[in-house]
């Protein structure tokens, strides 16, 4: 029992981060059909900027706010300087642009910061909580709670605000949205900004547990992408579900089957999803209208 609970929390914590990355993918995908492979770099920026601002003497909340601001600015710049000028290019071209951008951001981070790993102090101490014989870090609860708050906030924004509705309208039908007077350019910029903020928050929450370095974004982007695929790309609820399921699969694969092949799980998931159910768990079937 204790072992099950331990694996459950290990999986949920890792999964929550995958979910946040997947959510970022989803937002931008909805607004533009672009898969933004620089999504992992927002997570990296969130962690790294916080670490360095904190080391420079800023209090942790301020350092975190600064990190979110830096990530959002990066997201907006990415949209303004790389995506916007390539408007009209095919989706594949845009995806390649985002891969290039992610390499650039990583390179800059490596120069501005350094190449070492860094840690942040846990927000509320390192003493593990005991739950049914399992030991759970308070920071894990921060990650889970933070992820839940973000998902809820995003849901409120999408359902209850005019701007959120504009995003949804753009996602549903871009041309129609433009016809009713929605500036889809602003919507897309907004999607990048919000995705960046979500990624950054994820990076900040998780750094006390997982440590961070300039290079952590790559693998997170891949895992997050797998999660988004699993959940059904373009569906926010699916993204969250996909992230959590992937995290749990990895944890239980490592704990119960063989830790050697743990990383293979994510990629096996991508393959299976592509082969068996390309629409993912909650995705719509892509219907070509004739």
């Amino acid at each position, binding site marked *: 029992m204790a072992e099950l609970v*331990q694996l459950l929390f*290990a999986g949920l914590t*890792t999964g929550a981060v995958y979910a946040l990355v997947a959510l970022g993918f989803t937002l931008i995908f909805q607004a533009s059909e672009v898969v933004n492979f620089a999504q992992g770099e927002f997570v990296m920026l969130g962690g790294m900027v916080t670490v360095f601002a904190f080391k420079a003497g800023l209090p942790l909340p301020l350092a975190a706010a600064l990190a979110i601001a830096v990530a959002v600015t990066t997201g907006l710049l990415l949209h303004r300087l790389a995506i916007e000028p390539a408007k009209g290019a095919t989706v594949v071209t845009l995806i390649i642009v985002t891969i290039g951008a992610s390499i650039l951001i990583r390179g800059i981070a490596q120069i501005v910061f350094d190449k070492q*790993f860094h*840690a942040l102090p846990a927000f509320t101490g*390192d003493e*593990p909580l005991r739950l049914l014989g399992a*030991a759970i870090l308070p920071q894990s609860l921060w990650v889970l709670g933070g992820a839940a708050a973000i998902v809820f906030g995003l849901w409120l924004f999408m359902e209850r605000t005019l701007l959120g509705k504009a995003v949804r309208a753009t996602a549903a039908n871009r041309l129609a949205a433009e016809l009713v007077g929605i500036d889809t350019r602003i919507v897309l910029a907004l999607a990048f900004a919000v995705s960046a903020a979500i990624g950054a928050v994820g990076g900040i929450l998780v750094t006390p*547990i997982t440590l961070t370095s300039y290079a952590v974004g790559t693998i997170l982007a891949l895992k997050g992408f797998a999660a988004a695929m699993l959940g059904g790309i373009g569906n926010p609820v699916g993204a969250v579900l996909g992230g959590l399921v992937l995290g749990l699969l990895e944890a239980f694969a490592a704990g119960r089957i063989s*830790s050697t092949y743990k990383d293979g799980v994510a990629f096996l998931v991508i393959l299976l999803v592509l082969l068996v159910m390309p629409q993912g768990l909650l995705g719509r079937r892509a219907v070509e209208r004739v």
Partner: protein
Amino acid sequence: MNRRRLVLGIASAILLATGPLSAAEPIKIGSFLSVTGPASFLGDPEKRTLELYVEKINAAGGVLGRKIALVIYDDGGDANNARTFATRLVESDKVVAVVGGTTTATTMAAIPVFEDAQIPFISLAGGIEIVEPVKPFTFKTPHTDKMACEKIFEDVKKRGFSRVGMISSTAGFGASMRNQCLKVAPERGIQIVADERYAPGDTDTTPQLNKIKASGAEVIVNADFGQGPAIVTRNVRQLGLELPLYQSHGVASKSFIDLAGPAAEGVRLPAAAMLVAEQLPEGDPQKKVVLDYKTTYESTQKQPVSTFGGHAYDGLMLLVQAIQRAGTTDGVKVRDALRATKGFIGTGGVVNMSPTDHMGLDLSAFRMLEIRNGTWQLLY
């Protein structure tokens, strides 16, 4: 334009006139290091060390009356790049010897190139397969992972334990050390009761540690370098496991203590004398060498010394002394001189090479350390 030509002309005339006297062409020593990428924390201090000491050697008059010209490439930790740069060092840079190869993977990729060209190559990587079996032109300075296993198991037995739970990374260093540990365990009377793995970049190892806990292990041995060991160390404490934890020499830098935080207290590891330079007893043969290097590095680079830079120091010094003894830069003769190295005192230990031992270190080169109050404590 004309004036520039004139100057060039005069310059070449002078060069020609002075002939062989100033023809003391520099001795070209090549290097390929993982200055960026996942092994950058190894490659970066290595590069700094090579540049620093080549400058010092040149300022002191060079070797055989010639300056050293250092050619360094950054392979980014990628074995394919390493091989490309190795070829470039041999074919276009025409170096006389090579000190480099940050990781076992990059080293192994480059070895055939230097062996074919008969160029002495001193690797800075840990894997035992670099020098076992012995290859005619390949040497290495760091301790092997096999020695690390032996040192750890020696300590485990001393404390009266014998059941070991292994947890190692699937990447090069971790995988290689795991294999060596599994191999030497029976000889040392150690029983490996759990053998868990995790991938580089993994951020949670509690599932694996749970399995180790259930296996009845008396101690945990973690084979890896970089951030993995910090995660494992934090996870061990998070789970409240009371088992003694051993890390490898791969974590022998201050950043491990910073990353693992209070969880690192009580962790033991085998490491080179460098980490505890000040704590070495007065009579220790390595004390002077290690302290000198540490002071020089820290005063010029403004960052704490690591054993990895020390490997580069040892490699460069071994090579320079061998060239001096050989009196030439001929590959075969320098190789013979390297092989004949006896009693060389480096940062990694006392080196006694032979035709069958291209590393020349024994277990005494490893010290057993424990982390206490956020710093290294020399045990023996």
